């Protein structure tokens, strides 16, 4: 077959036939012919696909074919063109080329193609053709036959794959013929279907997110309740392990730790796997790691005779793999196991031996161990011991210079001595008490003779470490007590008390300060302190000192003949406010003073050197709800400060009589004020003042009375002449003074005096008995009633009425009664008035207005309203109102115009109509016959009023 004739083309078609023999000579002819061949195109043989193998798991097709190279000269370039298509869609998926050299041998070529969708999804077909030397060969070049890959079976593909986050994945649902894919979902979301063939559909998921622990479900739902599914695991490739570190704690196992970095999002069999490879020895171990822990640990056995280890930590998961490496010298990475079985032994008062065990083989290194020593009295101390290591052995260390009879606590930790890496954990703590030792010196003693001098009291300081016994009192002991021993006050200093004294030259063997631990009397708990003779001051400190407690110190000087009491000192470590205030009582009270007395306070209550008392007082009842005097910020609060401690009473002066006072007494020290003690005192009544306060006014009144009586008696004639003359002087008569100030706005004297006024208009009206519609409104009726005779003498004549006219009132349109304007009396002006109101008046009413205006005197201000309302009057009412006769000009309605809704209510009170406008008052006083208008209102009017009263009542 390899010797089949073939054709050569050289521009013009040109045939060369090579025999089989010439083929064998090819190497030699090739060198000759090759340059020549390069200018030729060979007619390629139709290639034949040897095999087409699908790898479903990797979506890969592997194509194999032979190049038939034996049939061609050596070294020809061969190009292969491969075409792949998916059958049902007849979609040309790809057409790719592949180049090779022909080597005069039949070579089988293999070519892989990775599909972007599972191969199960649909059938794939592959064919191939080739060119020799030239790709633009336009001669005859045949394709091979299609080679198919026909998947079988149905389901959802790919099955159980793992991909990296962000990948694009195509899923296809392959089903039986005749079924229909209804929908396909990825996770909870449906994706648009891509139809691949009659029995397969696909969805394409782009940029897949990390899946949940159990993977993301892809479900294909088909007709007839068919369902298929698969699970996709989307995660991350492993991170490069960080902080890889290896150490040994016992030279048996090397423990390597690292941080895994980002979680892969894959679990179980797909989770990240670690293996530790030691490249020097070539050993490797796979690591069982706990996925839940942040830090991973893997153990590697220590190899004999190997000190340097080169570790490579391989990390892999289905998505990828990575590694980290570390080179360690094991001797420099020793973190010994925690020491255990710590014991302490010793039969000395100052030294002990410690023993402990370390579970490890440290024979080749030295260990450095640290012993922590702590006792109740002193601070912790660390003691380092270096020692050769052993194989699983016990280590011993000796500690010296300990205190006798002291309880110590020990614990140990170790590390490598030469190359420190890390301390082990501390061992458990072990306690040990050192043995007792003989005392280094005798006890500190003090002796006191009893007051009677017959017995001697011996004190010594207790040292619990020492056992004591009194054998005998050998030394001679004398205490001299001078008569004039003075007492000083000591100064608090820090938590002690500062005491100083003068230097006494004859005190040769020092000083002793002695004190009691209670301020009470004997027997007390005595303590003392010795000082050398060159000392002149000291700060006495004791854990037993308490603030607010007075301590008495005695300073003794020591001389050869005995001790001498030099002085007494009292002091506090800290002064506190007194516990309470002194008890105090009110000794006596008067109307303006209170005498207060108080008692001495016991020293225990003072809690400091008493500096004085503070008495505060203010007016105040005994009321539990009221704030305390001192807290209230009372402005009347007065405070008296008593610094003279010998004073035990105080008189408070300048108080008010019969007043309750609250008194608060406080004592104070440098530490502050005590809580107050309160008293309530009521001062006595000031009787003298009261009597005087009553007597003086009475006396003054009596005196005035007497003086007045005398005066009246003496001037009785004059008085009678002045106030009650037999014949009254007309000039003195008030009744004739109405002409005065009539136009000056004097309210009390508004009469109808014309002269001083400038008349605006004067209206002379003839009263017509047939003015039927006047009493329409209250205003109207009042107008008709206000018939004012010009001279004021004849109130009964209704024929002529002179009306004063006050222009401002008109301008105000009825809103206000004529209060201030003087009533002018002048010519008739109804033309003006009418013209003024004409626009508001209906033509039919004009005649009636005339009637109204002629009805008698009326305040002009009311005209328009009355004109408007005339019509609504019933004749009966008009009649009755006509007979009503005189009414005060001041219309009650007029000043009630603000409330136009309630005319009747005002009208009903026509007895009171005289109140209000000064004009009306005037007219009543002077123009009406007495009693006529007030006492006998016309009955008809009253009736009208009542109806209105009832009508308007609801409006109120």
């Amino acid at each position, binding site marked *: 077959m390899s010797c089949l004739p073939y054709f050569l083309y050289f521009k013009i078609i040109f045939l060369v036939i090579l025999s089989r023999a010439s083929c064998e000579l090819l190497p030699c002819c090739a060198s000759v012919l090759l340059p020549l061949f390069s200018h030729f195109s060979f007619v390629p043989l139709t290639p034949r696909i040897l095999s087409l193998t699908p790898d479903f798991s990797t979506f890969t097709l592997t194509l194999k074919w032979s190049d038939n190279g034996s049939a061609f000269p050596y070294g020809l370039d061969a190009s292969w063109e491969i075409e792949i298509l998916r059958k049902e869609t007849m979609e040309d998926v790809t057409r790719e080329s592949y180049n090779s050299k022909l080597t005069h041998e039949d070579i089988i070529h293999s070519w892989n193609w990775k599909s972007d969708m599972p191969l199960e999804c649909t059938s794939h077909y592959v064919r191939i053709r080739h060119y020799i030397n030239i790709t633009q060969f336009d001669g005859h070049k045949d394709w091979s036959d299609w080679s198919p890959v026909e998947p079988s079976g149905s389901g959802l593909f790919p099955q*159980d794959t793992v991909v990296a986050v962000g990948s694009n994945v195509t899923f296809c649902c392959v089903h039986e013929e005749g079924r229909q894919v209804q929908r396909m979902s990825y996770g909870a979301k449906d994706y648009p279907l891509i139809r691949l063939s009659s029995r397969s559909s696909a969805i394409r998921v782009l940029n897949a997110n990390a899946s*949940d*622990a159990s*993977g*993301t479900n892809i479900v294909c739902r088909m007709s007839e309740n068919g369902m*298929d599914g698969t*699970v996709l695991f989307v995660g991350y490739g492993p991170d490069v392990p960080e902080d890889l570190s290896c150490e040994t704690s016992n030279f048996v196992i090397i423990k390597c730790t690292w941080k895994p970095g980002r979680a892969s999002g894959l679990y*179980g069999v797909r989770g990240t796997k670690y293996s530790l490879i030691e490249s020097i020895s070539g050993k490797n171990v796979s690591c069982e790691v706990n996925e839940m822990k942040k830090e991973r640990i893997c153990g590697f056995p220590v190899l004999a005779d190997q000190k340097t280890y080169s570790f490579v930590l391989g990390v892999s998961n289905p998505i990828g793999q990575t590694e980290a490496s570390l080179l360690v010298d094991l001797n420099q990475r020793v973190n010994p196991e925690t020491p255990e079985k710590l014991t302490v032994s010793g039969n000395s008062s100052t030294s002990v031996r410690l023993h402990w065990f370390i579970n490890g083989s440290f024979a080749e290194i030295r260990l450095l161990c640290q012993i922590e020593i702590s006792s109740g009295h002193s601070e912790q101390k660390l003691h380092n011991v270096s020692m050769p290591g052993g194989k699983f052995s016990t280590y011993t260390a000796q500690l010296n210079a300990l205190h006798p009879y002291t309880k110590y606590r020990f614990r140990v930790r170790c590390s490598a001595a030469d190359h420190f890496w890390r301390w082990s954990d501390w061992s458990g703590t072990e306690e040990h008490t050192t043995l007792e030792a003989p005392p280094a010196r005798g006890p500190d003693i003090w002796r006191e003779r009893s007051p009677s001098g017959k017995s001697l009291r011996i004190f010594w300081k207790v040292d619990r470490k020492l056992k004591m016994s009194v054998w005998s009192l050998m030394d001679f002991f004398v205490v001299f007590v001078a008569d004039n021993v003075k007492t000083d006050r000591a100064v608090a200093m820090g938590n002690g008390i500062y005491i100083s004294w003068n230097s006494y030259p004859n005190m040769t063997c020092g000083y002793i300060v002695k004190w009691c631990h209670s301020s009470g009397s004997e027997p007390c708990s005595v303590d003392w302190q010795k000082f050398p003779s060159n000392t002149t001051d000291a700060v006495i400190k004791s854990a037993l000192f308490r603030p607010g407690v007075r301590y008495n110190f005695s300073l003794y000087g020591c001389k050869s003949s005995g001790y001498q009491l030099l002085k007494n000192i009292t002091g506090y470590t800290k002064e506190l406010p007194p516990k309470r205030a002194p008890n105090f009582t009110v000794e006596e009270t008067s109307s303006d003073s209170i005498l207060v007395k108080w008692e001495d306070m016991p020293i225990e209550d003072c809690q400091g050197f008493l500096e004085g008392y503070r008495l505060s007082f203010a007016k105040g009842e005994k009321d539990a709800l009221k704030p305390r005097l001192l807290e209230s910020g009372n402005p009347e609060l007065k405070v008296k400060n008593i610094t003279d401690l010998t004073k035990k009473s105080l008189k408070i002066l300048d108080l008010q009589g019969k007043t309750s006072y609250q008194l608060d007494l406080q004592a104070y020290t440098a530490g502050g004020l005590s809580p107050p003690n309160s008293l309530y005192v009521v001062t006595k009544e000031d009787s003298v003042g009261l009597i005087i306060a009553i007597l003086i006014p009475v006396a003054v009144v009596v005196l005035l009375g007497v003086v007045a009586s005398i005066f009246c008696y003496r001037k009785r004639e004059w008085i009678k002449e002045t106030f009650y003359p037999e014949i009254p002087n007309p000039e003195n008569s008030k009744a004739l003074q109405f002409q005065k100030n009539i136009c000056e706005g004097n309210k009390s004297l508004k009469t109808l005096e014309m002269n001083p006024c400038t008349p605006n208009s004067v209206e002379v009206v003839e009263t017509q008995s047939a003015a039927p519609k006047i009493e329409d409104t209250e205003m109207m009726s009042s107008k008709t009633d206000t018939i004012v005779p010009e001279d004021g003498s004849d109130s009964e004549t209704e024929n002529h009425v002179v009306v004063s006219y006050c222009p401002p009132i008109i301008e105000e349109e009825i809103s206000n009664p004529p209060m201030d304007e003087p009533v002018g009396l002048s010519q008739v002006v109804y033309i003006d008035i009418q013209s003024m109101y004409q626009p508001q008046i209906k033509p039919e009413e004009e005649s009636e207005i005339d009637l109204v205006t002629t009805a008698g005197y009326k305040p002009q201000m009311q005209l328009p309203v009355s004109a408007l309302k005339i019509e609504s009057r019933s004749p009966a009412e008009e009649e009755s109102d006509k007979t009503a006769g005189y009414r005060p000009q001041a219309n009650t309605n007029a000043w009630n115009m603000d409330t136009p809704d309630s005319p009747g209510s005002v009208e009903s009170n026509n007895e009171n109509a005289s109140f209000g406008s000064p004009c009306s008052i005037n007219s009543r006083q002077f123009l009406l016959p007495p009693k006529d208008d007030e006492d006998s209102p016309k009955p008809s009017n009253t009736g009208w009023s009542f109806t209105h009263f009832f009508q308007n009542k609801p409006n109120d």
Partner: protein
Amino acid sequence: CALRARDSWGIFAFLCAALCNLPAVPALNGTEELGAGQSIQKTYDLTRYLEHQLRTLAGTYLNYLGPPFNEPDFNPPRLARAEQVPSATVDLDLWRGLTDNARLAANYRAYSRLLCYLRGLDGQVGTVELRHRLGHFCSSLQGLVLSIAGVMSSLGYPLPAGPAGPPAPPGAPAAPNDFLKKMDDFWLLKELQTWLWRSAKDFNRLKKKVPPAVVTLRMEARGF
């Protein structure tokens, strides 16, 4: 079935008679008298507790399986593989027609096998918390199996032989893919739920049947 029922009643009557005659024996104590009734009550209580426990467990587990398994209307076709899980979908009339013994035995067998599958779940679960809860549920279910055995023995029924004892199938054959495994899990939980629901009914009925007899026995015993 009828024969068996008669048998069981016979045994029961025999037991009753025996107990009636026993009061003279001073060693007899109250707890033994109450054995059957009490253990049925306890089994009933345990079943209800497991029902409750399964509700929360199933919720969590189905969420772990992810959509669509946790969708309320998810109702997949029951694949052939799932048939390995003992199905509780027996016709109710048929089920009621069985004798107490047969029903108890069926319960016992079913729970033994369900337990076996459930333990298979345990190892695969990715999250520790869920593994914990599954473990807890397994021990409760183990308790139920023992409890049913107790009821059966107290009523004098023999324990079903063979598959009931130590689980005969050594775990289910591994599912061919992860999705089918999830389907198996889904069906397992579903069947468990149905079984527990039906068992609760069974024990309730049994409880009503048994205790009165025991009470009368006790009264008679006191009468002596």
